[in-house]
């Protein structure tokens, strides 16, 4: 700090910018970063695996979320630390890329950081550690590829797919009926999958939930469910062989974008205006009728008069349908979304075998089922459950299962089990014995962290359980065998590979930081 004077003799204080900032350098910086990363991993560690626990998250607004999904937990946590934020990003990118394994990836990164800390204390340069990890991860990646096995599935033999989805679901609260849910997920994915191109568009699968009933009542609907009811209480609740007009224009007089005014100054004009108005409604409804539609689905609202006219002409209608749902309906029914009444023509109508309204419980909840569509490529999974949190959690779990099924269809390779990594670790040791022994061992130890956490969470003795046998895994459910092939516990290769790659990358990034400059609080 220094005192200086300007040309008018007024004093001012010069502050060096650096002093306003806190700064960490060298080993201290790395240690602090590692500690932060480990702290995040520690939170998630207990929710890994079939016996993992859930976290209850209370949002600022007081809402409660109960979840086991790593990505969701981290997303909801309000994290301030930069490194912790990196870990959140890590889990998010795993979520985007694969959809499952969001907890595993963070636990693995945490373990890598923990091992790196030891090496740093031995005085090994961070860059060397980072490089060693990189090499080791490449070997692990290839090795996984080698021990994975391809599997065959076809539309009639979905068993392998179901097995893999069950592995994903077994760690969630829905594991009570994982078999049913896994089947639903696989069937849904197969329904929308393009097996030729090996592509699955998950947007076509709509997941809808309604509180009430039991989890077992969850069903897959080959069609669309819209949380809306008919615009007029007396419209028919059931339409067979519906021809659907999908409209994005309101049943209201036109509203030109340009500003305009219609001036009325004589009685005649007043009367013409009224006639005109009635003609509008009449024409709109007539056009729908002329095109041959038997159901109108509209993105906008209806005027009372239009509503009654529709009812009167025996044309059931649904209003205020969201844009996304409208698109799905269009895909499912093979119809076109029509933005103007003038463009409505018979060939633009969507077709569905059955449209019905269904009500639930004692309250007036109603939903609209559109089934037996012309194009069965859009499906809806309809979740029932005891309470709101249950449904939300089921939605997240199903999303994971859907992603897994999709990945399998894209790349048909499986990796047998979790604790295989131990086997892998030993192999690594052999491979990398020259020169960087210590590095590769620490990587291998880090890989052990996942099965270790699994065993711990299941209340088993961790050391005992990590015996080595190529198909050996952790017997979390007390089945009696720890051969994963027998237990049918599978994971996708790509999921596992991504976990290793992403975790290594983030750890490398964290290790390379040797200087943290942050503005101090003011």
């Amino acid at each position: 700090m220094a005192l200086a004077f300007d040309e008018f003799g007024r004093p001012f204080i010069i502050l060096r910018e650096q002093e306003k900032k806190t700064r960490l350098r060298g080993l201290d910086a790395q240690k602090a970063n590692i500690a932060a990363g480990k702290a995040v991993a520690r939170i998630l560690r207990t929710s890994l695996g079939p016996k993992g626990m859930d976290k209850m998250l209370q949002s600022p607004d007081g809402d409660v979320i109960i979840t086991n999904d790593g990505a969701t937990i981290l997303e909801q946590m309000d994290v301030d630390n930069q490194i912790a934020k990196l870990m959140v990003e890590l889990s998010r990118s795993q979520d985007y890329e694969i959809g499952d394994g969001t907890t595993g990836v963070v636990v693995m990164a945490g373990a890598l950081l923990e091992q790196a800390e030891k090496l740093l204390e031995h005085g090994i340069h961070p860059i060397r550690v980072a490089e060693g990890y990189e090499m080791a991860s490449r070997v692990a990646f290839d090795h996984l590829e080698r021990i994975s096995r391809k599997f065959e599935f076809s539309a009639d033999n979905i068993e392998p797919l179901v097995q893999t989805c069950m592995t994903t679901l077994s760690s969630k609260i829905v594991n009570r009926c994982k078999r049913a849910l896994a089947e639903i997920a696989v069937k849904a994915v197969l329904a929308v999958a393009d097996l030729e191109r090996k592509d699955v568009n998950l947007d076509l699968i709509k997941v809808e939930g309604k509180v009430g009933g039991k989890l077992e009542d969850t069903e897959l609907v080959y069609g669309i469910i819209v949380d809306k009811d008919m615009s007029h209480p007396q419209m028919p609740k059931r339409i067979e062989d519906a021809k659907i007009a999908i409209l994005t224009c309101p049943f209201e007089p036109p509203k030109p974008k340009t500003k305009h005014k219609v001036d009325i100054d004589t009685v005649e004009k007043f009367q013409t205006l009224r006639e005109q108005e009635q003609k509008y409604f009449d024409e709109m409804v007539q056009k729908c009728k002329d095109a041959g539609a038997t159901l109108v689905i509209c993105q906008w609202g209806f005027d009372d008069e239009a509503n009654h006219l529709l009812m009167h002409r025996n044309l059931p209608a649904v209003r205020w349908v969201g844009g996304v749902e409208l698109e799905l309906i269009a895909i499912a029914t093979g119809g076109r979304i029509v933005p103007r009444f003038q463009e409505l023509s018979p060939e633009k109508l969507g077709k569905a075998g059955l449209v019905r309204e269904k009500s639930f419980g004692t309250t007036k909840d109603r939903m609209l089922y559109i089934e037996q569509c012309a194009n069965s490529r859009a499906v809806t999974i309809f979740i029932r459950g005891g309470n709101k949190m249950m449904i939300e959690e089921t939605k997240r779990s199903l999303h994971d299962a859907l992603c897994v099924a999709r990945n399998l269809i894209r790349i048909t390779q499986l990796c047998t089990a979790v604790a295989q990594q131990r086997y892998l670790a030993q192999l690594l040791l052999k491979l990398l014995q020259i020169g960087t022994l210590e590095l590769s061992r620490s990587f291998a130890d880090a890989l052990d962290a996942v099965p270790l956490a699994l065993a711990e969470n299941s209340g088993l003795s961790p050391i005992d359980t990590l015996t080595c046998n190529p198909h050996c895994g952790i017997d979390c459910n007390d089945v009696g065998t720890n051969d994963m092939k027998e237990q049918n516990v599978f994971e996708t290769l790509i999921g596992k590979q991504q976990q290793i790659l992403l975790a290594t990358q983030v750890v490398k990034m964290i290790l390379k930081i040797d200087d943290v400059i942050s503005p101090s609080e003011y």
Partner: protein
Amino acid sequence: MLRSSGISIHPQASFIGAMAIADLIKTTLGPKGMDKILQSTGRGRNVTVTNDGATILKSLHIDNPAAKVLVDISKVQDDEVGDGTTSVVVLAGELLKEAEKLTNMKIHPMTIIAGYRMALECARDTLLQKTMDNKENTDKFRTDLMNIAMTTLSSKILSQDKEYFAELAVDAVLRLKGSTNLESIQILKKPGGSLKDSFLDEGFILDKKIGIGQPKRIENAKILVANTAMDTDKVKIYGARVRVDSMSKVADIEAAEKQKMRQKVQKIIAHGINCFVNRQLIYNFPEELFADAGILAIEHADFEGIERLALVTGGEIASTFDNPESVKLGHCKVIEEIMIGEDRLIHFSGVAMGQACTIVLRGASEHVLDEAERSLHDALCVLSQTVNDTRVLFGGGWPEMVMAKEVDELARKTPGKKSHAIDAFSRALQAIPTIIADNAGLDSAELISQLRAEHHKENCTAGVDVITGTVGDMQKLGIQESFKVKQAILLSATEAAEMILRVDEIITCAPRRREDRM
């Protein structure tokens, strides 16, 4: 360091919150359960006196997240089956209480959950076997329904006149002929008189007055139900406005407006109706026109009233009036103005659809009426669900004891730590009759042990008879409950307990920071 992940609390905290809620609501369970007074903090400090679990929990201000789970299940129970809202929370609370003991013994929550699941399966199967179904026999089924209604009502304010109200509720529900659409049963509350003066009316009652100078009684009414503006028709074309340059033109426009309304009224009259019910206001001018034509015009019937009226009279809700020949009109035999207490209401009798009816509740005060309505609603919900799923069970703690017995058997057969959890489940089930007995001021320890001994005989129908304070034969006493309600209680309570058990950490997010705009 990671400071913003919030405060993490010891897992026990999540149990405690949930158990506190269950303890709070426990005293309202059973026929001798007590009521709670809820006082709102808002303006007017409104007071509600209630015994209904869902209502109490809805009004609580809670910031414990686990407690919120319980509030949520009671709400869902209310939406799904309508009754058993207290029982579900109490059972979940008991399950957690037992689980807490087990975790203190260092048993892993997942093991407890596995045990609970096995016990749940077993309990549900037992219930399924023990159900009774009198679907074929109409008379017997009616007795079943009466018994269920009385059992439900006996824990409510209506217990004094439960037979009377059970009769009301059963009559109303049977008129629905199997539909669960409770919308066509209208409950009308009018302070004054006593609860005994409540009655079921087979027609439809609209809480509105008849316009002045219009007929007070119409026979063979043809009703047009409408939702249309009867003040001035708004011009709906965007951007239209009236601009005039002289006073005479204003008069012209006004005349045209009047003319327009007159035409509209003419069109409505052309339907050949003698009663017109509108959802929106009817201004003086059209009202006068209707009066001139001898048509009864009722304005401002609310949305539900309109829908219900359309439903019961079989008419459609109209908004345009250009094709009178194809609009379906509603019919009823007689429309007349009746007096209930001080108020004048419009009564539609002899309606086309026999399903609808109105229950008029009378009572000393608003609070009594509100509570009576809630009780009756519970009874109606349960009955309408029972009409669809006709399986019934005995009440008075009988199902719990039967389930507990089977679950006990299972615990003995199961090896491993899980058996502790199964045992705990059975204890939680037995807690329900214990609480019922406690609330009635009885010696629960004595009573429950007697009951348990009784249940070891084959085909026992014993339960807690709160009135005499002994173990009684539920079949003779006619205490019955709906299977569907019991099953929903069992399933949701276990699900909620499981959910809370699975949690090992509560992460509270920091309150959202306000933007610095100072």
